[in-house]
């Protein structure tokens, strides 16, 4: 058995090193993209000047009505556009960084949930979940660096961090007790540290359980997981206000935390399913049977619908009440982001609904993989829709910075996850439910 575990570890060292090469190529591509950002920045100036000519047309229309204001308005508009374009690569990195960070956070929550509920079906997948949640550390540090860079005015993702804007904005002024850079960063640091610590102890106990003779570490993890869930639900909610909702500092929605949570939860479960299917196809997870995949697919199906429910609840109340300061959020999305906004609903709701409805399809690996990829694209777009309208406005486009940022963080994510997979045997062999889980059959 130990020899088998060592064999697995060696086998794993090979698998990620291959993948790693591929990812490194992608990462190189990103560095290339990064280099081209600065060029792009200059190109933006050119574009901005170029835009001057194009913008004359609407300018002239405006001239007919406001002859005097038009000139000033035009340059103002151009400056605005320039800021948006300067924000674009930052926002692209931010979206991708948050997307992959949120996956590992969602997986950690799912993992803690399995412990807290003492689920019998899932322990065979624990090592996969632990590995995916390993990305929380590098991903969280990157997130913190990005937020700190915003805080130090390296970029202008968060308008409320700009003292000039705040000086002219009474609504933000009233929120400065909460929305100020030091407190913002302190909150982020507390949450990230809390998640790191909880993950560290949960995983450490799970490893120690392998060698233990009694269930002491299991009981410990049960309590730890329950504590984590309480901490997580509060911190995740505040995190979503801070990191995403405050991009639109005037707008607020009380179920935003849940909405972001459902998105991270479904993406996390999808990634668990994808990684498990990949490992199983390589023969590393012989104890995972199609009932486990079936259960994960049920979760994907259910949480996709839960996401839609929250998305729609948020949308319908605001749409119905039609209060200007609230509805502007959706107007900017529908008018300027029509395709990603509605496309995302199709990808995240209609597609999984129709494909995963049949019970037998949830056991067919390629169905689950295909739906999983679609769900991940859909939830990337979801984050895109949450971040982009507030940061780049109507000058959005999924181009080189966006795609290379996704590739870069995707590569880092894959590297971290698969190298974490090599660090422990893939079966949590002393878990009290492991036998039930191996025989799990539905």
């Amino acid at each position, binding site marked *: 058995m130990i020899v088998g575990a060592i064999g697995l570890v060696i086998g794993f060292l090979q698998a990620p090193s291959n993948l790693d090469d591929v990812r490194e190529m992608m990462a190189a591509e990103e560095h290339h993209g990064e280099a081209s950002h600065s060029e792009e920045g200059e190109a933006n100036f050119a574009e901005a000047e170029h835009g001057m000519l194009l913008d004359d047309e609407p300018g002239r229309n405006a001239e007919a009505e406001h002859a005097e204001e038009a000139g000033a308005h035009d340059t103002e508009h151009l400056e605005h556009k320039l800021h948006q374009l300067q924000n674009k690569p930052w926002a692209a990195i931010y979206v991708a960084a948050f997307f992959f960070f949120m996956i590992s956070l969602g997986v950690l929550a799912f993992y803690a949930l399995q412990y807290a509920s003492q689920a019998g079906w899932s322990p065979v997948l624990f090592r996969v979940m632990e590995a995916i949640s390993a990305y929380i550390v590098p991903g969280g540090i990157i997130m913190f660096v990005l937020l700190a860079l915003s805080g130090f005015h390296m970029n202008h993702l968060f308008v409320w961090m700009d003292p000039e804007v705040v000086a002219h904005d009474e609504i933000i002024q009233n929120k400065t007790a909460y929305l100020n850079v030091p407190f913002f960063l302190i909150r982020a640091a507390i949450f990230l540290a809390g998640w790191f610590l909880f993950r560290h102890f949960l995983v450490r106990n799970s490893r120690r359980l392998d060698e233990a003779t009694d269930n002491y570490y299991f009981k410990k993890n049960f309590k730890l997981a329950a504590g984590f869930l309480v901490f997580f639900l509060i911190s995740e909610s505040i995190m979503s206000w801070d990191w995403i909702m405050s991009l639109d500092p005037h707008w607020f929605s009380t179920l935003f935390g849940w909405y972001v949570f459902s998105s991270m939860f479904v993406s996390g479960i999808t990634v668990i399913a994808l990684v498990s299917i990949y490992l199983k196809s390589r023969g590393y997870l012989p104890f995972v049977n199609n009932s486990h995949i079936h259960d994960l697919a049920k979760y994907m199906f259910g949480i996709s619908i839960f996401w839609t429910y929250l998305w729609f609840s948020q949308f319908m109340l605001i749409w119905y009440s*039609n209060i200007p300061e609230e509805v502007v959020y959706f107007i900017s999305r529908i008018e300027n982001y029509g395709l990603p906004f509605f496309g995302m609903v199709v990808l995240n709701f209609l597609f999984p609904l129709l494909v995963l409805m049949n*019970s037998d399809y949830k056991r067919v690996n390629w169905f689950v993989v295909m739906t999983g990829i679609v769900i991940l694209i859909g939830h990337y777009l979801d984050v895109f829709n949450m971040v982009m309208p507030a940061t780049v406005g109507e000058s959005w486009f999924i181009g080189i910075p966006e795609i290379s940022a996704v590739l870069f963080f995707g590569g880092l994510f894959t590297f971290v996850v698969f190298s974490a997979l090599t660090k422990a045997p893939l079966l949590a062999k002393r878990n009290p439910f492991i036998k039930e889980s191996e025989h799990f*059959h539905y």
Partner: protein
Amino acid sequence: MASKVIHAIYNDDDLLLQAVKQVREARYHIGEIYTPMPVHGLDKAMGLAPTRLAITSFLYGVVGFAVAVAMMDFIMIEDWPQDIGGKPSFSFIENMPAFVPIMFELTVFFAAHLMVITFYMRSKLWPFKEAENPDLRTTDDMFLMEIDAANHNVDELTKFLYDTGAAEIKLIDNK
């Protein structure tokens, strides 16, 4: 109906599941099984065809959805146009978000109720129907397997069932 059947009573669902497998392997014919609660995997062990209830449920859901769309279109847009949420567009598609809860509810309503009614019809159940229960204890804690004994040696079959762990074996001869 088989004229001669054996009732084998088990007191555990795992035991019953094993017994079902053994009985089928020995090529005896199981007429029916009465259980106090649903036993997971029993239908597969008995070799019953998979249920088509899910398909009917999906179709009923589609019907419910269509009814909701037609109903809301007629009530709110055509017959008596309403100003919904301060947006007097009087078009179905622009007011659609307001109708989504109704569409959802009617989809669920139709799927659930019609599925239950279908299930009753398919299993020949109706109000005030007399129970076809051969042994009252199957409503409490016993599992009863009814095996066709017409073309078999009864003693042999009894011995076989006893070995599968039956707690009680009864020969029922409907002359």
